[in-house]
């Protein structure tokens, strides 16, 4: 681990954030672009759910998370409070994992 890595990554990470929010973000964009941008959360957050549920270090891994996220997704769909959703995911996952049914 070096300072070069820390500072270069800081600059790149902030560069991406500023590019989207400040540099491009200030302009008004064509209607078709606006319609597409409105769908970014649906597309990317759905991908995050799948990525964080079914993968580890770039491989597809099925483990106890799947059970936890399944229970939590039903809770979220039934409009349970946010806190209940994430606590139920953690509890179900930890319990299933401790039983050894799924890693």
């Amino acid at each position: 681990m070096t300072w070069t890595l820390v500072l270069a990554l800081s600059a790149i990470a902030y560069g991406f954030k500023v590019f989207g929010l400040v540099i491009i973000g200030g302009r008004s964009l064509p209607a078709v672009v606006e319609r597409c941008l409105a769908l970014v959360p649906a597309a990317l957050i759905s991908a995050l759910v799948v990525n964080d549920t079914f993968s580890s270090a770039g491989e597809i891994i099925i483990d106890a998370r799947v059970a936890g996220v399944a229970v939590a997704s039903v809770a979220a769909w039934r409009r349970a409070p946010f806190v209940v959703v994430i606590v139920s995911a953690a509890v179900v996952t930890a319990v299933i994992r401790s039983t050894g049914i799924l890693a």
Partner: protein
Amino acid sequence: MNSVDGGVVERDSLTAPCVVLGAAVGVFGVAFGVGAVSAGATVTMTCVMSLLVFTGASQFSAVSVIAGGGTVVSALAGASLLAARNAVYGLTMSRRLQGSLPLRLIAAQLTIDESTAMATARSDEASVRRAFWLTGLSVYVFWNLGTLAGALIGTAIDPATVGLDAAFPAGFAAMVMPHLAHRSGRRAGLIGAAVCLVSIPFLPVGLPILCAAVGILVGVPKP
């Protein structure tokens, strides 16, 4: 307490979700602090990284590449790929976060998965902004306190033993629900999830999430 309006719960207290989300992130911050120090970073370097980079997945990826004997360049490449989606989030949030330039430069640093997801799950402008700032600041504080604790203590709770590795996808599932209320949102979400899942085994970590952005092309035809 909760008023359901247009399918979206508007008035539930934001504070509890933000604190819970922040605390969960904090545990990962501890894990990051421990990992970075054991990969050869000093306590200062580790804390500066969390303060300045502030995008967890990129930081974990950089540390794991270095810990595995990789070069600075390969660590930087993987971590940058993971950070790229924040540019897309920034574009989305810029429609909703107007304000002075200094304020937007600060908002940029807080533009990450959690703040964008919590904010865009709201429908009226005021609570979108409130959710963005509350979540961003809560995660920022907890992530950095966790990093400091981990870097100093050197041993962490393994987030997996308490099931916290499932807490994030679960949280994101809750945050994406309002976006799936409309047909175009459901189609974009389905395409995004499918593209991500199919590409995980073939693409470097981080790229599948970015590729999921093709789902937004559902918005091209006029409704």
